């Protein structure tokens, strides 16, 4: 086997599955296709996969049920491809142990970026999504990963953009560890920084406005001069 990432793509719609497989192959992945859950099971017996892209709504056994099956057997990360953008669907998917989701129609480039993020996370030893979701508590705040919600000490939800959420999660899961801009971009977006990239600084300053008592003198997300950012203070993981 080469060092190519091996993807299992499960979707009943050939019209989407085939061009997507083609696109991913062009991007340098090795792609195996399955049109339903039972076919996917037999393919999984024959090959080892690095990641599974799974449609939720399929005839026969649906994606959610198949995801549960995958979780029982292997540690292969799963990204859901869903036609439903409903919030509930996302939560259910993430609770079942999916690592991420994209909703149709998605940008194939974004899908590739997400595949890279998930793979980097699992390869870095942070493991796959444990399923029930983790709860981080820090400086009076609570971050619930299954609902992607940030709640303050008074129970008030503070909405985050997905970029801010990824940034906060990256810092929280590596609390006390100084992360430079390249590392943060890599973890959150699966890409490398180009020159004068302000994306990380932007996200951090937005996060600070939302969670710091005084964004000008941050107590939670601290800047390390010449290094990057670090999440200070105690973090409890439940």
């Amino acid at each position, binding site marked *: 086997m080469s060092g190519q990432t091996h993807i299992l793509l499960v979707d009943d719609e050939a*019209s*989407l599955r085939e*061009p*997507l497989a083609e696109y991913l192959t062009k991007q340098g992945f090795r792609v195996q296709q399955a049109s339903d859950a039972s076919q996917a099971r037999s393919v999984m017996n024959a090959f080892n996969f690095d990641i599974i892209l799974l449609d939720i*709504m399929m005839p026969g056994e649906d994606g959610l049920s198949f995801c549960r099956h995958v979780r029982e057997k292997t540690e292969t990360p799963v990204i859901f491809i869903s036609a*439903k953008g409903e919030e509930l669907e996302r939560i259910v998917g993430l609770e079942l142990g999916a690592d991420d989701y994209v909703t149709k129609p998605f*940008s194939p480039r974004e899908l590739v970026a997400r595949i890279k993020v998930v793979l980097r996370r699992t390869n870095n030893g942070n493991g796959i999504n444990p399923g029930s979701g983790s709860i981080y508590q820090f400086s009076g705040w609570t971050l619930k990963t299954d609902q992607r919600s940030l709640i303050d000490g008074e129970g008030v939800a*503070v*909405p985050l953009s997905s970029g801010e959420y990824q940034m906060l999660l990256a810092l929280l899961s590596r609390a006390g560890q100084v992360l430079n801009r390249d590392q943060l971009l890599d973890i959150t977006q699966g890409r490398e920084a180009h020159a004068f990239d302000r994306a990380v600084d932007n996200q951090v300053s937005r996060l600070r406005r939302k969670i710091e008592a005084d964004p000008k003198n941050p107590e939670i997300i601290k800047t390390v001069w010449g290094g990057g950012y670090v999440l200070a203070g105690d973090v409890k993981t439940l």
Partner: protein
Amino acid sequence: MKRLLPKSLIGQLLALVAITLLIAQAINIVLLYRGAQNQKIVEASVSAVGRITGEVERINERGFRERRVRRDGSPRVRRNRPNITAQSSIEAGQRRLPAVEERAARAFDNMGIDVRAVEVVLVDMVPANMTNSVIGLGRERRRLRAIGYRGTVNEIDGYIIMSAQIADGQWLNIASAVRDRNPKLVRTLFFQTAVIYLILMIPLIWLGRYISRPLKALTKGAQDFKPGASDPIEESGPPDTKQLIAAFNDMNGRVGAMLDEKDVMLGAIGHDLRTPLAALRVRVESVDDDNERERMIAGIDDMDRTLDDILSLARLGRTDETAEPTDISALIETVADEYSDMGEHVSFTRSGRITANIRATLIRRALRNLIGNAVKYGKQAAITVDKTDDKLLIHVDDSGQGIPENQMEAMFEPFVRAEISRNRETGGSGLGLTLARAIVRDHGGDVVLQNREEGGLRASLILNLN
């Protein structure tokens, strides 16, 4: 008058019964009272007839005799016997009682007493010339000898005077006290009415509750009606009401089933349209011409947003998301950042923390639509927040041309777009404002538009706090 009417079924029922009963009792009281009045006079006249008959018989038997005198020469008083005069002692203008006169004449006739004429009047006081010819007065002249009903002393309620002309043309005159046998009659009748009321009230109140309680439950059920999610209402009360509740529950079930069907259909539409859209989106990546590709992507994104708006609008009110206290400033900031990241001019200055109970995903969508409109049609969006005691106003101001006043409300109609947007081919579903208003109204607030004095349009999202 309308305001005085009881509002509830039971209140109206009670009022109706009370009024009907009152009328019936009033008629009853009047009849009884008049009957009793008549009875008193008849009683008095019967004794008067008796005395006159006695006197006539005495005269027939012994002949007419001059009044005897005492030894000292004073006339002997023949107490309580008719006096005899040449003329009737009844004067004109007194209140005659023709019914009694007729009755007395018949009585004399029946007894074979020859009486030519009878005159009867009702008076308050016995005239001075008749003080010795009064039936029913004791020595004290005011008290009755007879002991009245249930140990009470009967009051005297006036007198009748009867004058009868006998065969020789003389008149026998006698007064007879009208005795009030039951002076408490009216009080008794009122007491009786009250008792009937009380006895009637108990079953009536019970009946009213029996009828109105299930109706109230039904009303509440209809007010709180959430299609498909409401529990069926307990079938209770009279058979008619039970049938009504059963029919309502049935309807509830049918509406729920219809909405479920609609949701399934919408899900299918969403799925069936998004999958080919997704396929198209993937294929577009292989288009080499950058310009062409970006345009195609924009087209697909636009279609996706329209589809999203339509589905959201159709699903509104059926969302599973629950309202939670949310930091509104952070929410606005998140949406504003989205647009600044796309290179739009959006400004928002955070002004302390404001929390409200909202379904954040939906309000975020409403805000996104308002800000999206502002940057699309009005070059920029300046967001400010106003907070009153019970309201939160989020103003989104743009620097566009505004909207003519007469088209303002039409902007909220689905698929209606302002002239300027159609001319510029800016796209959009025409559902943005419709959806924003529907979402905010679902939260108990509203979205309103107004032209700013400085030019440009102000879209305000108004939320009720608490």
